[in-house]
């Protein structure tokens, strides 16, 4: 049986696809603007393998960028939870920087690092980093007084214990944010590939765009959706395992 996320994607994809076909046949548009079903099917057969590899390449970079963002956000979040000046500085900086669209900075990264893995990774990581950081700072800077009180009064509190208590108490929130930011990591990687890449599905879409080949783009979109859904399903499954483990006797 298909997972909820996958069939939801399939429903949305085919609804969009049906709408596109409706526009084509109702307005009598040529195959050059919107390709026919036969042409899409032929493109799918021809490029499915190639595009699947490209999507997997993109997904690998997205996962790497996602993990990198989680690590960075955790470290900065731990410092940002502090009540001294460095904590306040990091919180204010994070709130201000996240308001700036990272995509707009992407060309600078391309100019400085050129096209390739480093640019893709950096842009992907930056796009999903700030939402993660804000959530982690929010969780880690909020005291869980009813648990922390004992450790404070008996002078047993240290920063590791404080982080552990706050992360444990908000584990559901953290897992939801991590799963949610996975989509952003994928979006970030594809955006990076539009601008600065020599591989990946974003790069393939850019070529298809130059060729005005909508059939290729539709095949690419299908594969992106399926692969992202599978990644999200995996993260949700991981989240359930973690929740069960920390909640069990």
């Amino acid at each position, binding site marked *: 049986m298909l997972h909820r996320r996958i069939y939801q994607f399939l429903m949305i994809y085919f609804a969009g696809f049906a709408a596109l076909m409706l526009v084509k046949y109702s307005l009598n548009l040529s195959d050059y603007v919107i390709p026919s079903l036969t042409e899409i099917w032929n493109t799918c057969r021809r490029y499915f393998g190639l595009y699947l590899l490209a999507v997997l390449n993109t997904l690998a970079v997205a996962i790497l960028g996602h993990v990198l963002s989680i690590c960075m956000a955790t470290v900065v979040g731990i410092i940002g939870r502090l009540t001294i000046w460095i904590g306040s500085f990091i919180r204010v900086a994070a709130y201000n920087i996240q308001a700036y669209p990272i995509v707009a900075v992407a060309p600078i990264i391309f100019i400085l690092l050129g096209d390739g893995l480093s640019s893709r990774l950096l842009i992907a990581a930056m796009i999903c980093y700030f939402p993660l950081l804000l959530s982690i700072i929010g969780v880690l800077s909020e005291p869980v007084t*009813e*648990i922390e*009180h*004992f450790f404070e*009064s*008996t002078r*047993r509190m240290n920063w590791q214990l404080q982080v*552990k*208590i706050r992360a*444990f*108490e908000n584990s559901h929130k953290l897992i939801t944010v991590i799963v949610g930011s996975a989509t952003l990591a994928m979006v970030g990687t594809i955006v990076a590939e539009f601008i600065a890449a020599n591989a990946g599905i974003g790069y393939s879409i850019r070529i298809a765009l130059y060729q005005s080949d909508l059939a290729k783009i539709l095949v690419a979109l299908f594969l992106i959706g399926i692969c992202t859904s599978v990644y999200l399903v995996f993260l949700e499954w991981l989240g359930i395992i973690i929740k069960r483990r*920390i*909640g069990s*006797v």
Partner: protein
Amino acid sequence: MQLELRDINYTYPGSSNNVFRQLSCQVTEPGFHALFGPSGVGKTTLAKMLAGTIKEFSGDIRIKQMEHVLYTYNLERLPGWYSVHDHLAQITPPPNRRRMQELVESFGLGPCLNSRFAQLSLGQQNRTNLTRYLLQDFDLLIMDESLANVDEITKEKIILKIKALYPDRCFLYISHNVVEVAKFCRQILVLRSYHKQPQAVSLQGQDFDGRRSLQEKHLEQCMLEIVNAA
């Protein structure tokens, strides 16, 4: 061992209403004492002042021969990743390890030891929380409704056990139950609204320890005094 509060004035930040105005009172000997008063009169605020959590007040709090002051309240929780036993074992100082078993048995916590805190009933949670504080090194323990949701028989058993095990320590028991305060406490500080002066009235309780019989007439008299004072 002495606890003395002199001319305490306090207003909550951002509020214009006084909580304390010229509040003075004292406790001069160890024992199981009570802090009694209607809701909102400032019992918890006073407890936090004694524990050092609230510092922005005027007046003097003098605590002599009481190095470790602990404050516990009934909404506290244990970390969720530990079982009760693991947590108690972790936080009990080595010299108090022997006492842990005794308290666990007296407080009826044996069946809860392998459970996590969230799996316990409210009464069991409060007993567990109180147990871990009793296992610490303290001179004054402020118990803010620490035995809420505990049935009367178990509550009596716990209080008598505390009095037997810690005769040289000072306890300040915050409760709304006039019967248990009158019955078990030695000195009862009745806290009143700041409109009334003096704001705190000290009364003698029956200090029942289970060894001598309790005189109903004296208990009723004491309860009446507490209610009148409040």
